[in-house]
């Protein structure tokens, strides 16, 4: 089962980006003053709109599901950075899992499908827990192939999985960046701001 995505794996990455902590990349700058918009305090509403739009897009595409909303609801005063914290952990763990899976399948004499199933199971669990629906669905297909000891199918599924994961990661990065800017912008007080 191959999701038809003509472009390569990295087509949806925005340039070279580190998959680390969120970085503010290409902040919008005002033409006149050259200052970032958030500093001007003008971008709060726009940033909020951008965030909502991005989320709506991701929901529409099926990349995220309502579990992500649950995650957002868990964030409260006692844990203000909960969502970003969890997503970070997810990225960290997922990359480990993907590396393991890739390593297992690269081995010519690979036969330990059971081990692969365990990795997959964990990946599936964490992905579904944060609401990464598409990633999870690919994992399900991957698991089916692995249970049939279908190496070729597993390889295809792994590629698809990596692709979906990258897309998700990029989008979530973007999301958190906007969020970061919004928080900063909201903290800036200008007399002209409503």
């Amino acid at each position, binding site marked *: 089962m191959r999701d038809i995505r003509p472009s390569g794996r990295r087509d949806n990455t925005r340039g070279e980006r580190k998959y680390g902590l969120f970085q503010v990349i290409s902040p919008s700058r005002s033409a006149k003053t050259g200052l970032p918009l958030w500093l001007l305090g003008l971008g709060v509403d726009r940033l909020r709109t951008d965030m909502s739009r991005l989320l709506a897009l991701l929901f529409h595409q099926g990349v995220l599901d309502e*579990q992500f909303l*649950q*995650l957002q*609801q*868990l964030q*409260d005063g*006692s*844990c203000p950075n*909960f969502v970003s*914290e*969890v997503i970070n*952990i*997810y990225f*960290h*763990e997922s990359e480990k899992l993907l590396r393991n899976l890739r390593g297992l399948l690269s081995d010519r004499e690979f036969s330990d499908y059971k081990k692969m199933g*365990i990795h997959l*199971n*964990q990946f*599936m*669990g*964490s992905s*579904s*827990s*944060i*609401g990464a629906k598409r990633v999870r669905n690919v994992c399900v297909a991957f698991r089916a192939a692995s249970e049939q000891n279908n190496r070729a199918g597993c390889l295809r599924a792994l590629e698809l999985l990596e692709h979906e994961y990258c897309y998700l990661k990029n989008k979530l990065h973007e999301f958190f960046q906007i969020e970061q800017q919004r928080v900063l912008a909201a903290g800036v007080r200008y007399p002209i701001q409503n």
Partner: protein
Amino acid sequence: MATMQKMPQSSLGAGSSNNGTCKGGEVVVPDQFPAGLRVLVVDDDTTCLRIIEQMLRRCLYNVTTSSQATAALKLLRDKKGCFDVVLSDVHMPDMDGFKLLERVGLEMDLPVIMMSADGRTSAVMRGIRHGACDYLIKPIREEELKNIWQHVVRKKWNESKEHENSGSLEDGDRNKRGGEDIDYSSSVNEVAEGVLKSQKKRRESKEDEEGEIENDDPSSSKKPRVVWSVELHQQFVSAVNQLGIDKAVPKRILELMNVPGLTRENVASHLQKFRLYLKRLSGVAQQPGGIPNSFCGPVDSNLKLGSLGRFDIQALAASGQIPPQTLAVLQAELLGRPAGGLLLPTMDQPALLQASLQGPKCVSVDHGVAFGQPLMKCQPGMSRQFPQSVMSAEDVNSGFGAWPSNNLGLKGASSSLAGLSTQNSNAVMNILQQQQQQQQQQPILSEPGHSINVQPSCLVAPSRSATTFPSGNNPASINQANNYNRSAIIDYSLLSPQSSNSSQGVALVLDRDPKTTGVLSGYSAPNSVSPPASSGSANVDNVSNRQIQNSSIPFTATRQLTGFSPNASDIRSSYGPRSGNMLDQGPLRDLGFVGKGTSIPSRFAVDDPELAAANLSSGKFYGENSGNRVKLEPNLDFVNNDKVNPPVMQQFSPNDLMSVFSE
């Protein structure tokens, strides 16, 4: 809800002490229960661990996390009694989740909830078989975590009930079991092991051993069980009356009864149950509203009484005075009492229902088979036993049918049943009352109970409990019948014709329900009507009279069971000639249970029509709203659903259940 809140606290406190190391002082149960529940989460997936931790904190639980199963086990061992429930992932690198589950269940006897991303039926079934209290499928929602306290409460209640049962031996029957605490914990562990490991017929025997006071130590070889037939029980009761309830000692009773082959131990354990039953009846009478008290009080006797309740109900049903629904409710109540008895009742019910449906003919045991439970073997015997009156019993059983599935590996399953039983009992009582008023005839209920003799060995156990309290004079005896262990329930199925049996069965199941309030009300009613009942001095005649009245009284129950009036009439006709002796047992038993399991009646009421139509033999017990998801805790769903009378049919095919048990 207030009641529930109180109960869990006390049970938590009791539970912690039961668990051993943490005595009451250590455990602080906050007022806003279940806040402060101490949860240990084990998952190698850090993402999920963090998410669940946050969710649990939002539920105001006290959370400890660990990503290593071995570390978690060590923590549990080092700090025994400092945790209430364990959440564990199934697939972990250092230790299999199920292994951890077994260890925790054996060593610390804590409820363990499994989690996994794998939500396939086979995986969930595996979890159930290993004895997990519940199986959550990732992604886990906060609402699911909010409810995990129920497993803690249920487990503690079950344990405390068993302990009380064990401890209530008055005539030193316990000597056989040796030290109380040790035995209790071992028997609890036994149950745990039995549940965790093999839900097969072994379970039956284990439960029998567990619940039956008369039974020998689990380790000892099984003696042939004494079947307390109606006649035998009446002899017993008359002997007791002769001696005076206060002065009745097993030795003298044995002499008076002059029954060859009866041992002092048999009499002693039977007497103990009888006393519990009486106590319960009198307790109910005194505290009409004091459900918690009565609930807690006769906890120990619940098991026994449960079985009695069944019989009573059955007897009543048999006499045609109890509509099937009522009977079901009563049975549910009875069955609900003993934790272990859950399995049994389910079996009985189908058989019972069938019996009632078929009228004078014996209830086909096939229904029992449908439940796919150990009781299945009893079926052949059952068919003999189930006259039409069984119907109500069956109704109850059917209601329990859903529970048996819950019982799979579930120690705490009974709690849910208990809830049902409360409701059911109320409903049943109503129906019974109505019917009785119509008929003015003593139901033959007691009769069914007596037929216990016939059962196969597995059934025997309950017979003792059930049949013996016919004259009940004491509503308390019903309670005892309820307590008559799960094994009693099995018997009930066979004995379904005997109301006494059925009532007991019902009582067994219904025990656990926090909604004991209903039960108490049921009890009080009879007492008011027949004052001599609680005094225990009533003879059989009085008892029988009272029983009619009693049965009518409890029928002030809240629910109105709909449905089986046609069946009731069938029962009536078939039991017409039998109205004599068994009446005593029936109403009293029923009364005992009425208080207990109010929740069931509604359920059964709903189910009964379905069951009747649905051809019980097909093995469908409840229609459960939750569908086919094999979760261990559907019980609670049932309890909750009672109120709304949802179709409680769990779509467990007999094969599923069978396979579960056979593994």
